[in-house]
């Protein structure tokens, strides 16, 4: 039996009258990539924001690396956040800082007590991992969307987190860059030994990066399993629809 790093039971979240999550159960095992698929607005981002403590759940158990998020002190939450990396949907790089300063940021202000040399070494290592060493002195505004995504990933992995949460890593990118990002996610998994949740509505990404796939429909997980299991012939019409619209020219993918 593998270790569970995230355990969520019967999770509910509403915004006013809008019921977004209605009884989510989720397990993330050590060292796996779990893909969460779902239409826009189904609450995928809300789910991972709950996992890193940005949004508070209304009801339900959320256990991350042994911390119970419903009863967590500020100090514990900070300690947990060093172990949980979050890659934002729109990268969320700090505009006013260079790429190097962006990546140094968590090292300088969260880990602290690192020497300049250790920091430089770590920055160089992750920049090499994402293949963007040449952008060190540039500002985020000078980079393309795909490059920003990579830097976002670099900034997240620089502190060696145990869990990575990717919010739509391939959204808005061309197909070739998508494949490159997918490869990067797999490479990060191998190199940094992190467990990941990957939020997406891109089935190619799901297929390439996911060990398991979960489909979020109407606030609950409709189905979980490996890619073939989820999209087999007995899949519900909504899941089939999801599949067919993604591969609209190639229904027998």
């Amino acid at each position: 039996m593998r270790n569970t790093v995230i355990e969520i039971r019967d999770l509910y979240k509403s915004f006013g009258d809008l019921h977004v999550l209605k009884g989510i159960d989720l397990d993330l095992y050590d060292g796996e990539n779990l893909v969460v698929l779902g239409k826009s607005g189904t609450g995928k981002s809300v789910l991972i924001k709950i996992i890193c403590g940005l949004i508070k759940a209304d009801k339900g158990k959320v256990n991350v690396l042994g911390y119970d998020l419903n009863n967590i002190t500020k100090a514990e939450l900070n300690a947990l956040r060093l172990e949980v990396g979050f890659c934002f949907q729109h990268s969320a790089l700090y505009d006013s800082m260079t790429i190097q300063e962006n990546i140094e940021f968590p090292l300088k202000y969260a880990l602290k007590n690192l020497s300049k040399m250790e920091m430089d070494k770590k920055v160089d290592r992750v920049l090499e991992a994402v293949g963007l060493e040449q952008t060190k002195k540039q500002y985020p505004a000078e980079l393309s969307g795909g490059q920003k995504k990579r830097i976002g990933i670099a900034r997240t992995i620089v502190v060696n987190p145990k869990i990575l949460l990717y919010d739509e890593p391939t959204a808005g990118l061309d197909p070739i860059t998508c494949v490159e990002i997918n490869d990067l996610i797999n490479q990060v998994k191998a190199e940094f030994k992190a467990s990941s949740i990957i939020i997406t509505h891109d089935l190619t990404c799901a297929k390439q990066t996911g060990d398991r796939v979960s489909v979020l429909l109407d606030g609950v997980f409709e189905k979980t399993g490996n890619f073939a299991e989820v999209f087999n012939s007995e899949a519900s019409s909504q899941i089939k629809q999801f599949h067919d619209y993604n591969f609209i020219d190639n229904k027998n993918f």
Partner: protein
Amino acid sequence: MLKKPPGKRENFISEKIDRQLLDFKSGVDFVILFFKEFSFKTLVWSEFVHQCYQIGLKSLGLISLTGFVTGLVFTQQSRPSLLDFGAESWLPSLVSIAIVRALAALVTAIIAAGKVGSNIGAELGSMRVTEQIDAMEVSAVRPFNFLVITRVLACTISIPILSFYTAAVALAGSFINVYVNEQTNLRAFLFDAFDSITFLDLGSSLIKAILFGFTIGMVSCYSGYNASKGTIGVGKAANTSVVRSIFLIFIIEIFVVQVTNSFR
């Protein structure tokens, strides 16, 4: 601090006034949070120094110009009234009292509200709507400490210093005017100018400038930090920073003048 969810709560007065009251309350909570979280131990010094530079040094040009012109023009315009009484020799003391007691701090604060306030409001606002503040939070850096405390403190310290600088520049402007018209030499001018200024004047101006700086920092950080989603929110944050800062500056001015006068 965060917006209330749109529940179906009964209105306390009317929807609009309720919203204002809630906004006021969350503003007060924001200030309380500042005092709770503030400590020199957790202060991010590098960011604080950077902000002092941004706020103080970068406003210097505009403030120099405004201060100088204020002193010069104020002297010029006051001359005829004094001439009517044959009292133009009182010009230096009249001008210096006006500058030190009121004009320097007020002019500095209003310029800073426009320049620094809109800057902070827009910067934090865009960081909020592009999730940069969330990004800080999830990387275990407390954005309130990193962004708000440093900026508020930098404003609170920079604006009083700028105010004294403005006073000096305004007096220089005034001196040039007096020198050209009455050929008063610098020594006589300074003697007259400082002779009429008391410690109460200096002290109350200092306190006023500190309050102005704190208010500008607090108001613009609050507007930016709580900007609502979208690019419209950024513009709105910049705008409310300036409008509310200037409004509060005048309230503080009136209040401090009343208190100071009760000591005279």
